């Protein structure tokens, strides 16, 4: 499975990148692809999920790197690697849930390459999609790529490939916003609005746009938080279910709480009800149990990955409950 030929574009500035991206965007599988760390894109290209004519390497664009504290909060350049995030004292101090989630991604070697932007833009995954061309062809092409079948929900028209990035769950709990740059300038939107909830066209990113930075608001600094991840092995693997939680407590009562899930839906999702239920309450077993059930109801896992969907949904419940109780103590 060698890589097919492609032309590599290596802009040095954001403007140059946008100007290169816009005219050469292309279409479908041949569309120009942005490469950051490449830890998701390259394996996918080997599997012929993408066969771009142009690959736009953004790694030389200095303005996309680094972590800055500003008046509004903390800004993280899209190119910041996950290992930088792990080591950042600012983030460790103010946004521990993000650091915790970043640390669970893949392995140390991959985290040296992998970027936060790439983790947010990460393609959705499915056992029937992340496979070689021969494999997909022999099993029948699916909705997400080249076909109209769905192997996990037979007869279905919707693609259920699961969003399986770790950090977006944490970022949702932190009410992160993202900035996108395109030929018309930049736009800013809550991360939550970036995802569509569809497995195939999973993100609202135009082919001529780049994700430039992630903004963590002041308001969510210093929340206590934690991230729990299900995987079979101790390392390397994508989450089979993930739960991020942030809490703000005062005198034993919850002022605000947020719970977000990953790897069990086509998008990372906030458990909206949970925030309402948690607010103003004192955390005990019963409440944790209740919120765990809410989280499990939000999860819609299918057979897109290993382990049964029932099990993965149940783990969302257990993780949520456990994480809440751990934070309460």
């Amino acid at each position: 499975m060698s890589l097919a030929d492609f032309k590599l574009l290596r802009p040095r500035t954001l403007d140059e990148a946008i100007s290169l991206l816009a005219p050469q965007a292309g279409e479908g599988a041949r569309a120009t692809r942005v490469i950051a760390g490449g830890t998701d894109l390259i394996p996918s290209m080997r599997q012929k999920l993408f066969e771009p004519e142009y690959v736009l390497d953004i790694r030389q664009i200095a303005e996309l790197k680094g972590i800055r504290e500003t008046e509004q909060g903390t800004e993280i350049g899209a190119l910041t690697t996950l290992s930088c995030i792990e080591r950042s004292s600012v983030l460790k101090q103010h946004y521990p849930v993000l650091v915790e989630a970043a640390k669970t991604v893949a392995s140390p070697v991959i985290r040296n390459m992998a970027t936060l932007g790439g983790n947010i833009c990460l393609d959705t995954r499915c056992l029937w999609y992340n496979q070689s061309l021969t494999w997909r062809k022999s099993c029948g092409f699916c909705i997400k790529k080249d076909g109209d079948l769905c192997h996990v929900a037979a007869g279905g028209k919707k693609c259920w490939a699961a969003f399986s990035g770790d950090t977006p769950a944490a970022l949702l709990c932190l009410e992160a916003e993202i900035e996108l740059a395109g030929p018309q300038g930049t736009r800013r939107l809550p991360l939550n609005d970036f995802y569509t909830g569809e497995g195939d066209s999973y993100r609202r990113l135009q082919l001529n746009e780049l994700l430039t930075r992630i903004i963590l608001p002041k308001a969510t600094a210093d929340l206590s938080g934690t991230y729990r991840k299900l995987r079979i092995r101790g390392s390397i693997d994508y989450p089979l279910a993930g739960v991020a939680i942030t809490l703000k407590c005062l005198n034993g009562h919850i002022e605000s709480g947020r719970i977000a899930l990953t790897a069990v839906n086509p998008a990372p999702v906030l458990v909206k009800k949970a925030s309402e239920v948690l607010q103003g309450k004192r955390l005990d077993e019963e409440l944790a149990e209740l919120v765990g059930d809410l989280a499990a109801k939000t999860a819609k896992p299918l057979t897109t990955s290993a382990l049964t969907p029932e099990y993965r949904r149940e783990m969302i419940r257990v993780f949520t409950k456990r994480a809440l109780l751990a934070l309460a103590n």
Partner: protein
Amino acid sequence: MDAIGGVLCRCTGYRKIISAVIDAGREQILMSSAPAGTAVGNRMVRLDGLAKITGKEIYGADEIPSGALLLRVIRCPFHRAGFQFGDLEKYAKQNAITCVLTAKDVPGENRYGVIPKFADQPVFAESEARFKGEAVAAVAGAQAAVEKLDLTQFPVVWNELPALMTIDQALTPGAPQLHHGREQNVLVRGRVVRGDVDAALRNAEITAELEVETGFVEHACIEPEAGFARRAGDTIEIQACTQSPYMDRSDIARILGIAEASVRIIPTAVGGGFGTKLDLSVQPFLALAAWKLNLPVRMVYSRTESMISTTKRHPARMWAKAGAGRDGKLQALDFRADFNTGAYSSWGPTVSARVPVHASGPYFVPHYRALTRAVHTHLVPAGAFRGFGVPQMAIAQEQLYDELADRVGMDRLEFRILNSLTNDLPTVTGQVLGEGVGIRACFEALRPRWKAARKEAVDFNSSAQHLRRGVGVAGMWYGCGNTSLPNPSTMRVGLKSDGRIALHQGAVDIGQGSATVVTQICADALGCSIDRFDLLSGDTSITPDCGKTSASRQTFVSGKAAYMAGEALRREILRLVKACDCAKISFENGSVEVHEDKKLHRISLADLPIDKHGYVLTAEATFDPPTRALDENGQGMPYAVYGFGAHLAEIEVDTELGTIKVLRITAAHDVGRAINPTLIEGQIEGGVAQGIGMALMEEFFPGKGENLHDYLIPSAGDIPPIESILIEDPSSIGPYGAKGIGEQAVIPTAPAILNALHDAIGIRLRKIPATPDRVRAEILRCGITGASRG
């Protein structure tokens, strides 16, 4: 541990990597030399160690002869399909390919197999492909042209046919038959019967019964299959990674329709074999192309190709019932197993034959019946994988004995000790070993940790909520060498005129370190320091036949041949000066000195004539372990020597998550004599890692898993501390008393973990591996208190 979290290793079990890293920081001095006569028993550095760590070692893909063409294979995308080719010539022309090969291009027999009698696998399928991934054609040409090809566009029309996917489907009357003459798709049956098992079970005071199933397991060698071939006049040379150069040679000769002498196999270093590199992979394609084109041709399997087309561990469906007296004495075992052997025979017959010999475990069982079948399906062939079916079997038998011990009301370890085989008791094939039965010693070595661990677990469980600890034990025995078949090894050792020793050792070192061990043995037998040795390894044109690297036979069989050859050379030297047996020899540059009482003979080597091998003295020795054929009831002497061992697993189960964390493994192995303790520990730790994988996460789904992302092998974080206890109950047959360890090491781990799971929370799974969803579902099904909603 965290730092190497993303690194996959299939051989070491990671622990030795970590200690090596720590030692490197401490500038530990390792032993690369030892005075004459002291190599055996020492932790000598591997002879190939330096080449490995400096990256100089040549693996299958590392050498590319200039001008070599690249070869790629077209494989069937369906479990079963008829097919017809389109215009191949046009395709070749359009794509600038040098040639397309199909079954028509096979000059000899389009058929091979590791056991000649059962050879049934075509190099290229002829009209129907019998498994997803089977080769139907190959293309060879310039690298750029071949690499670029999208092989899904190859001109072939497939006609998908209904496939047999399970043992049951294959056994159904009227099911299509994969191979002529194999009724109901049964490849072979295995049978060992002793005593009257039905009566004994009827009369037994206590019985227990168990059913369990295991899945396909992938070898996941980090090095995929690779190599090249070239033609030199009337000889074909193949350099590739392999465990069995001599078997490769016979098969290639048959495929090309040429004499064996015209085939030269040059094995490279092997990055993991575990049994799968006993079968041919790249070799026949390369040989055909190079022979036909008279050009060098190379190929490297992609991970996908390796996973879909090479052999796997047999899935087993097992049932067993055992009986004991109230005194705890085992009386009877009735055991049945069906193995899904896939589309071609490979090592199916061996698995079916070996398992019935071993299904008693290392215990005395007076009444016994073990029946096995290997059944063909339209799936990837199952072959040899570390233990030839015995690891699967042990999962059934060792769990069953735990059940029996519980019903008797005996401590599970003491039950095993009570029933351990001894030197004087017959095995289930009626063999009385007479010596070297170290199983009891293995169990006894575990006793202190068993007691302590059980107490710790009870203490822990009394206060933990959803965490439960458990301790499990399992025993193992494993016959070294082929089952009731000759398996000789021949070693040649020569004294060079400069005083150095050449050892022609044809035993392929697949990473386990046999080249080092064999040299240690030969050095001590000769009475010469190991650093005088020059190794000539693995090339069928320069080394005599040492058989295949499998069945835990290299230390035992080839090691013994090296011992005999070393002794013979020593005798030759003594004969030159007519010295007595007790004389001492010392080797110098260009001379040899023989000290006898007060006499000193000095032999100037330059004065001696050179023999046909190019040495001043040469000795050759062959060893074939004594065995006797099994009769229709499986009675006889299948192996000369058995290795014994027992593992103790301590685990922690999260009852809410269904996850199992292995906390510690204590492994006691009777190795007869530890020729090189470091290498033995390496084998044990690597075996334990594979055992953990088999118990907890590894299951290959043919046609689905084809990458190491979906197929999980343990990573560093999954391997706990492993304590190895080496027991030396020598066998008078093996070199310095040594037995095998390669396969022995993997067998008891999985059953020990599964017994620990039962100890922790009282469940036994019907389907292995014990993935968290299966464990959790069983917890819910059994309504284990405190765990349903914790």
